[in-house]
């Protein structure tokens, strides 16, 4: 069955520290991969996406993610976290197969940033 797992419900990092948010997926077809961010009281905004080609993708706000097919992962990274990065982050998988309109979201990881 298609699924997306974000193992960490809540992560706290210090401002200036590096960040990695984990995402693992199970998807029968060739996946399209997305990371979205939701700031408090806001809708979801796309951070970055992977469709094909270079497995390291750059996004907005200094984020990047790497697609590792062998590990079925698409982890989100940022070298130095800013206080404004405090938000909830959602990984999503889409493509030609699957249910829910061919798009499945993880349950999210809430990021807190310590000063």
């Amino acid at each position: 069955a298609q699924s997306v797992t974000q193992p960490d419900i809540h992560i706290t990092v210090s401002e200036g520290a590096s960040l990695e948010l984990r995402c693992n997926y199970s998807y029968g077809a060739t996946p399209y991969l997305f990371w979205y961010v939701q700031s408090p009281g806001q809708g979801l905004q796309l951070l970055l996406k992977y469709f094909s080609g270079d497995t390291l993708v750059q996004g907005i706000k200094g984020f990047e993610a790497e697609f590792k097919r062998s590990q079925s992962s698409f982890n989100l990274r940022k070298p130095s976290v800013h206080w404004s990065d405090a938000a909830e982050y959602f990984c999503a998988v889409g493509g030609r197969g699957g249910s829910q309109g061919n798009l499945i979201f993880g349950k999210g990881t809430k990021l807190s940033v310590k000063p």
Partner: protein
Amino acid sequence: GAGVSQSPSNKVTEKGKDVELRCDPISGHTALYWYRQSLGQGLEFLIYFQGNSAPDKSGLPSDRFSAERTGGSVSTLTIQRTQQEDSAVYLCASTTRGQGAVGELFFGEGSRLTVL
């Protein structure tokens, strides 16, 4: 406007009343999704429309929930006989579809429903 528009942004209702939530997708987007986000929860898929195809209703939690999409554009999510557990933010998103695959979703800011 250029983005996905949802109304109302906030709705407070009494238990047992019906509510309608509206979504105006981005012009030209053929696919439209509804999600529910409860406090501290992730995105719960509700329903998906794609062009003129029959909608995927597999996420609707009960028969009190229904949705329609008129003319392939505006969508209305209706909740009948609201219950307190229906309190949540209801998010709408739209996207284009290419070669049968989903693309980037564009989200509205949501409709916050509070059932007293």
